[in-house]
């Protein structure tokens, strides 16, 4: 039977809601019987949030730092002393040559290299605002971004104490930054919205990805197919219970984020709910699509993982979106997480409203509908 056939023939014919309802009830009972899955649904968000939330601590602490000084002056000593005294940095050594300094940073022995050029102190006294060169290993963008800010403050305070700088503190020097390996950084509050999106992506994908293949593997699909229910009804019946589960997880993550990490909600909570509902449904639809394509549960999990990885890497969760090549940006437009991250960051941190988010909302809805259409078209109504 073609997709068009049952759409015109039976989608809205009598009993559509009754059959979807029967399916939803069944799925809920099964979900509730499956204690392990049920526990996982609550534990995954909490564990990940606490784990990543605290592990990804964005306040710099004890970052290994080397100094390459081309002069040995009071200014040099003041800067080194300041680096020793602050918690942000951990002064490891005074490099003696360019090569040594280069090696230190490349090998990962230090994350920062402060280079004091020859004639720095003299230029400082003349008010020429000489440049300190700072090379940062920005493979950890969050740490390096914040540390660079901290470094400027540390050096300024040190030089003021040594009276190289007047009390007014007008820029006596400048810092020329050189971020290695990864040119951008993100801010602390990005992590909770990011985790909200990634955790939802992962759990939602897996739940529905297993749903159809599980019925096939347990042999219950043969019975189900022999009963009067069509693919749209089966799909909705399998997706809807998890929308509720997703909302529950969202509340859990956001609530914990607000309590543990003081994440603000600048924008509308209603808008956030709507956007999250859409995002959850889009991911459930994608997972369900995998479920209709896969031959068994293992394949379904593998497909979900293949989809999950680019979501993590290209959505802007881990690496800044703007730094990606154009083709990667195009790919990321096809990932629900890209749009959701933009929207959640917008709503939570910037107070963005509906009109700001309209393009992302439209994109998310389109992705959801495409996934559903593929799922319904690909759903095997026979055992052929």
């Amino acid at each position, binding site marked *: *039977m073609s997709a068009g056939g049952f759409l015109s*023939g039976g989608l*809205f014919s009598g009993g559509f809601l009754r059959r979807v309802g029967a399916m939803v*009830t069944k799925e809920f009972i099964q979900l509730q019987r499956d204690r392990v899955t049920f526990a996982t649904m609550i534990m995954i968000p909490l564990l990940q949030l606490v784990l990543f939330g605290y592990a990804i601590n964005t306040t710099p602490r004890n970052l290994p730092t080397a100094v390459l000084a081309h002069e040995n002056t009071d200014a040099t000593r003041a800067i080194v002393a300041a680096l020793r005294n602050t918690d942000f940095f951990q002064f490891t050594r005074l490099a003696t040559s360019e090569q040594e300094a280069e090696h230190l940073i490349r090998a990962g022995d230090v994350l920062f290299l402060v280079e004091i050029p020859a004639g720095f102190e003299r230029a400082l006294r003349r008010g020429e605002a000489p440049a300190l060169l700072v090379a940062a290993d920005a493979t950890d963008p969050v740490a390096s971004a914040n540390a660079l800010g901290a470094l400027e403050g540390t050096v300024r305070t040190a030089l003021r104490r040594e009276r190289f700088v007047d009390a007014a503190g007008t820029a006596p020097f400048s810092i020329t930054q050189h971020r290695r390996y990864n040119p951008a950084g993100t801010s602390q509050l990005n992590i909770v919205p990011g985790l909200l999106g990634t955790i939802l992506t992962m759990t939602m994908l897996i739940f529905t990805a297993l749903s159809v293949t599980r019925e096939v593997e347990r042999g*219950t699909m043969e019975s189900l197919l022999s009963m*009067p229910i069509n693919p749209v009804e089966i799909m909705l019946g399998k997706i809807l219970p998890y929308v509720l589960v997703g909302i529950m997880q969202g509340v859990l993550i956001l609530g914990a984020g607000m309590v543990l990490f003081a994440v603000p909600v600048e924008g509308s909570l209603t808008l956030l709910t709507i956007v999250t509902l859409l995002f959850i449904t889009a991911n459930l639809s994608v997972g369900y699509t995998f479920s209709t394509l896969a031959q068994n549960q293992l394949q379904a999990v593998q497909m979900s993982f293949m989809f999950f990885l680019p979501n993590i890497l290209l959505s802007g969760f881990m690496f800044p979106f703007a730094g990606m090549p154009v083709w990667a940006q195009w790919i990321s437009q096809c990932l629900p997480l890209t749009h959701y991250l933009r929207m959640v960051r917008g709503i939570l941190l910037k107070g963005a409203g509906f009109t700001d988010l309209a393009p992302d909302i439209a994109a998310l809805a389109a992705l959801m509908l495409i996934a559903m259409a593929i799922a319904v078209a690909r759903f095997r109504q026979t*055992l052929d």
Partner: protein
Amino acid sequence: MASAADGAPQPEAGIAREPEADIAIEVEGLRKQFGTHVVVDDLTMRVRRRQIYGFLGPNGSGKTTTIRMLCGLLTPDAGRGTCLGYDIRTEARRIRAKVGYMTQKFSLYADLSVRENLEFVARLYGVPRPEAAAAAAIARLGLEGRGKQLAGELSGGWKQRLALGACILPQPELLLLDEPTAGVDPQARREFWSEIHTLAAEGLTVLVSTHYMDEAERCHEIAYIAYGHLLAQGPVADVIAASGLTTVTVEAMGAGDSGPAMAALARELEARPGIDMVAPFGTRLHISGRGPQALDAALAPFRARPGLVFRADAPTLEDVFIDLMSRSKDNMT
């Protein structure tokens, strides 16, 4: 509504659709292959309403495949047919609403209780008041007190009963039962068959596959399928008569263990031209041949042996099936 607007024919709306009201299943030239393996070949059969139609054949002969084609779960590669008057290729949806299909392997939800499984089925079929219907089904099946038990925890016999209950709950017109009694104890089998006879008496048509010969005798009509070919069909007596087999039984006289002697005799008989089949039945041997004269001639030298009693007999269904199988094997190779 979309379906009304596009003017598709609506059989329920009153257009006569039952020229052969007495026929439940009619298929012609049905064929199904998986890859290059032809599993069902040129199968033609007809099942009248209110009949218990037995579908017999050894494992792997294509019974399940045929049943799946009948309810639209598999698409035939060739042939045509109707089930309850609906085309099996294009009207699977309508067939599903009126057919109860009991799969060979238990296919209800193991993690739902008996009651929840029945309620789920009732809701899908739009049975009014699903809870009450499920409770009634539980009572009818004698499953009282087990309503809350998970289906997966039931024993084989109870599982099979539940599966049958789920099939008949929506009051279908046709039951397709795929080896419903496989692995079930004799007592439960007997009860199962009496239930099936009750249902047929109430007006249901039942197509039941099995590989138990004794169950064939409980059917109004049977069809025998082997290697995808339908080899015989009709009432049991007709199938036996149509086989053209002549059967003679031989028994050893006197006391003592005649086993080894009979086994030797069986080998001896089997080697004779004119004797097509020798099968031991307890202390007797069933000797069958396709030609009565040839059989007589072959047996003549043995009749003179002391201690053996020969008696003319009717072939059993099993004799007939084994003969049909060996003939079809000969034809294919």
